[in-house]
């Protein structure tokens, strides 16, 4: 296969065959054997002087394949395919009661607690063993240093510590080998490019939109995990995402945007092109209408979070606070707030009709929609479990991996971290929120919203929010049964306590799939899903945005200025 400078897509395709040529026979077992042999040797022989041997060692080797396609205004901008293999070494010295883990030597969040590196993609036993050998050696030295520092810190802080939980929770060894047909597809940017270009071309019909970009991503991951406890996992995951973003400015300079997100297990499972086009036209119509929308007034308001915004508000008020993993012990010993709901276990966090559970074992949500957060085993090799989090408004449990707390002594299969991320933390997989039988249809929800607003006083506004970033991006004012777009809506003072102000929920759950970047810990996200109906909040303080507007474009768009203005 020749690479001609004129055919980058051809190159990508040619690279697809590199691993399967005759002179490099596939040794599909090479990775497992290299892991097994180096793990056994390290467990038995790895020791410096009188220092302790590892009490636990696990390797995770993840093969990542990604195809990326980007287009704007009807033309392809990027087509990229990447293939990478990384190893993560989880090596512990000491014992389960006190080891080198969950210790923050620097006073800030540490991301170098374990060790990871990029290793060869070829299934070459010797080359892989060499990488594992050196990675383990590095991890062992680092572990010894951390353990010594942690012991030192523990002695200095002994007086403050009341019965610390152990550092490592026991679990049963497991063997999980799983791959669905979808996760065996090889990502190729060509699969999504045609669709991405076609969707981006729709913006040629929208003179009110200054800028737009459409990107498609297909990821396939294969994970192999082996621990000294005997757990072996070989599984795969895959997902496809198409993101459509439009940006423009109102005549007064306020920046406006709108976004659509399509997700599926693979490119072939995405909605058909016409359905996506309809959605993108709606996005563009909405964004165009927002340019002329009035600004909001500062007031108390009743807010209905619908669709993706419902998932986003659940993330902010609930999912982000569900980690039961204790904060790392700090070398300085200061108290830090972790934003977790741990202190509110057994207490009311929401209205009586509200319940929530997390279940990573699910692969699909309502209507068979694909959910991102499914897995059979978490990133610490523990089988995913269904966990009831909120039961009739009461917080009953949190999500936790193998770093136990006094309240949660065992992993519930939610120890998660990205392949390149060295710390595991209790994180959601698929979080399902429901109102039990109390769910209302869209019409009744709006009636309820109007009623709650009337109760709160004649100037109380009702807003419907469909897309959030830090603040609502797409919002409407509901008045006299009609929805009018508004601009500049800023939410004030929403905290996890605000969940108690939910006065009603919808009856149609929405699947919000996203890559959760976590809250300051780790720089690579984990795929997660929040499935929730619309949520109606009373008594939310809102104000008008104080963002400094920038001048709208000073001269006309080159494409639209050369064409007659479209009919209004």
């Amino acid at each position: 296969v020749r690479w001609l400078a004129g055919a980058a897509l051809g190159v990508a395709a040619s690279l697809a065959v590199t691993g399967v040529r005759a002179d490099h026979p596939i040794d599909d077992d090479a990775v497992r054997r290299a892991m097994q042999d180096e793990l056994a040797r390290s467990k038995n022989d790895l020791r410096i002087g009188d220092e302790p041997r590892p009490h636990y060692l696990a390797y995770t080797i993840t093969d990542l394949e990604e195809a990326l396609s980007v287009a704007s205004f009807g033309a392809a901008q990027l087509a990229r395919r990447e293939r990478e293999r990384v190893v993560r070494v989880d090596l512990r010295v000491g014992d389960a009661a006190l080891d080198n883990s969950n210790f923050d030597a620097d006073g800030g969040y540490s991301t170098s607690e374990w060790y990871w590196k990029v290793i060869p993609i070829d299934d070459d036993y010797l080359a892989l063993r060499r990488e594992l050998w050196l990675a383990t050696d590095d991890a062992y030295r680092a572990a010894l240093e951390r353990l010594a520092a942690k012991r030192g810190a523990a002695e200095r802080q002994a007086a403050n510590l009341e019965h610390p939980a152990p550092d490592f929770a026991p679990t049963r060894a497991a063997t999980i080998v799983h791959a669905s047909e979808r996760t065996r597809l090889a990502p190729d940017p060509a699969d999504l490019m045609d669709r991405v270009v076609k969707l981006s071309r729709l913006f040629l019909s929208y003179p009110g939109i200054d800028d737009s970009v459409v990107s498609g991503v297909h990821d396939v991951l294969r994970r192999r995990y082996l621990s000294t406890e005997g757990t072996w996992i070989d599984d795969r995951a895959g997902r496809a995402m198409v993101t459509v973003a439009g940006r423009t400015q109102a005549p007064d300079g306020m920046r406006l945007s709108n976004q659509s997100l399509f997700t599926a297990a693979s490119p072939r499972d995405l909605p058909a092109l016409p359905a996506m086009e309809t959605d993108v036209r709606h996005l563009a119509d909405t964004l165009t209408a927002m340019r002329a929308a009035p600004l909001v007034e500062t007031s108390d308001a009743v807010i209905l979070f619908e669709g993706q915004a419902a998932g986003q508000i659940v993330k902010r008020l609930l999912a982000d606070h569900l980690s039961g993993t204790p904060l790392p012990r700090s070398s300085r010993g200061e108290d830090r707030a972790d934003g977790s709901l741990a202190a509110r276990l057994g207490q009311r966090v929401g209205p009586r009709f509200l319940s929530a559970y997390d279940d990573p074992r699910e692969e699909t949500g309502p209507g068979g929609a694909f959910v991102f957060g499914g897995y059979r085993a978490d990133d610490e090799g523990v089988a995913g479990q269904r966990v009831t989090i909120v039961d009739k408004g009461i917080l009953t449990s949190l999500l936790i991996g193998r770093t136990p707390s006094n309240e949660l002594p065992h992993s519930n299969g939610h120890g998660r971290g990205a392949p390149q991320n060295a710390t595991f933390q209790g994180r959601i997989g698929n979080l399902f929120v429901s109102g039990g039988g109390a769910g209302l249809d869209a019409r009744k929800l709006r009636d309820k919203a109007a009623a709650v607003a009337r109760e709160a006083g004649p100037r109380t506004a009702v807003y419907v929010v469909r897309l959030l970033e830090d603040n609502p991006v797409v919002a409407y004012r509901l008045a006299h049964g009609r929805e009018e777009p508004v601009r500049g809506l800023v939410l004030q003072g929403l905290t996890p306590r605000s969940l108690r102000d939910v006065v009603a929920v919808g009856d149609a759950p929405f699947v919000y799939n996203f890559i959760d970047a976590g809250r300051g810990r780790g720089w690579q996200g984990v795929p997660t899903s929040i499935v929730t109906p619309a949520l109606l909040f009373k008594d939310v303080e809102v104000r008008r945005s104080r963002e400094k507007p920038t001048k709208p474009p000073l001269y006309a768009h080159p494409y639209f200025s050369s064409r007659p203005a479209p009919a209004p």
Partner: protein
Amino acid sequence: MRVLPTTGTAVRGLAAAVVIGMGCAPAGQRAVPVLAKTPAAQSGGQRARSADPPPVVRVEPLSGGGGGEKAAGLVALEQELARAMAALGQAKPPPYFMAYRVNDVRDLSIQARNGALVSSAPTHTRVLETEVRVGDYRFDSSRPSRSVAFPGQEAALLPRGDDEPALRAVAWRETDRAYKAAVDRYSQLRAQRAVKVDREDNSDDFSRERPVVFLESRQPLEIDVPAWEERVRRLSARFRSVPEIQFNEVAFSATNTHRWMVTSEGTMLQTAAASVKVNISASTRADDGMDLQRDRWVNGAGFEGFPGEEALGRLVDEAIADLRALRKAPVAEPYVGPAIFEGPAAGVFFHEAFGHRTEGFRLREDDEAQTFARKMGQPLMPAFISVYDDPSLRKLGDVELNGFYRFDEEGVPAQRVALVDKGILRGFLLGRAPVRGFPRSNGHGRGRIGRRPDARMANLVVQSSEVVSAAELRRRLLAEVGRQGRPYGLLFKDIAGGRTQTGRGSERLKVQLVMVYRVWPDGRPDELVRGADLAGTPLTVLTKVLAASDSYGVFNGACDARSGWIPQTNISPSLLVGEVEIERKAKGQDRPPVLPPPPVAGALP
């Protein structure tokens, strides 16, 4: 490896840490691979004393070609630029200069370790940089100021094809953004001028240059991807049977860049450049914990004349042999005394000690020590040494030079600049930011994609009007050892790279030596030592060059400064320096790996 900020604003913020310091090295795995080869070395020995310039191939920037057809995409950008100038010409203040610069980069990189592929990925990106200036040539929105930050200058993705509406839409958006940022900065600079004292250097902010039009046709670069993957695997497999080398990597990369530039002054460029590189990197930890690294590299402007697998394999084997020898070598002691810099090492030494201080912006900006600003016409080094920089040199012997280009990033044709003539400072490297006494660019405005160009080196050439044979140079070293009463002299055969600081109050120099030998007066064989770093005060060292050899060495490298990593070359004869200062390299605490390497059952012969 330093992580470099990508926006102008961030650069300002990190001035103390990054802007002042420069590194010029392969510097770990991320840097651009480079070449170290001494084409004339084999002919060394007893050549006649000669003041001949090196045997170079020069390419006049506007010669041979320029008959290419203008790409449709370039036409679209030309039209959009004209429309933008006309439309914004009505605004207040209007732009007086506008430029679009496009880099269309196709890149393939392949890496392997221990015979196994780590990655092999082609990329194709086309990015647009937009420059808008308001004010006038005398005082404009680009004037450097310690209190007015530059706006971020990220490059924007362009469509990869010639789709006119899509190309122009991006250019429009970027122009509007760049114009607003320029107006904003210009008004801040004007407000500041009202309250600040005058600058020392009252040069214009932007030089006036004659527009150039040059259109090259597209040049394909054919790469047999699977064949190169196999070759890189096989080269790196030579490390499989070497247990003591812990890290190794063989990296191949090929880049084909097509560049467009269109300015409101009438400049229109369409140029093509290709590069092919192989970088071999290996490191080991000595028993006392010292980390030792060896990098070898080769580059070319295409596959013609590029070394074959056998020659590349020899480089791998040499790296292995060097590291094995270094592991066993004694640790260098602190030393002050005479030393020979072989050609590539001498080139890097001049690059750090001298070259960076001739970069125009360092003579003008307030943060800088402006070392050379008042030394024009004064002697800096012995009268037999001359130094020039010439980006239009394409080859020295059969070695392609990394610093070659026809036009700089500001669209100015490359020019040869005499920096030092017979020991006297005569010139500076200049882009379009003038310096007192030097109102015009000499075609050295350089920077990586996404950075504002600065005056930078291209092909830096050190010349000597008096030369001796290599043997004579060695004889003089030993004579100097005797005269100074030192136990031995030093020979610097190879160098990893260097850093220098040019900031106010912090002028320092550091060069990482790799292959350093003790040369004994009693006739013992030269003795390899490890862990030596060259330190010192730049200007003092320059005065101590005693003699030069008759053969040139080339260090094809990559150089980093405020405007980012750029390909660059240093050429010099071997030099005898009367006094250098050697520091012992800081040693790591860690021991070699606890366990022996896994058994090499699968090792290739």
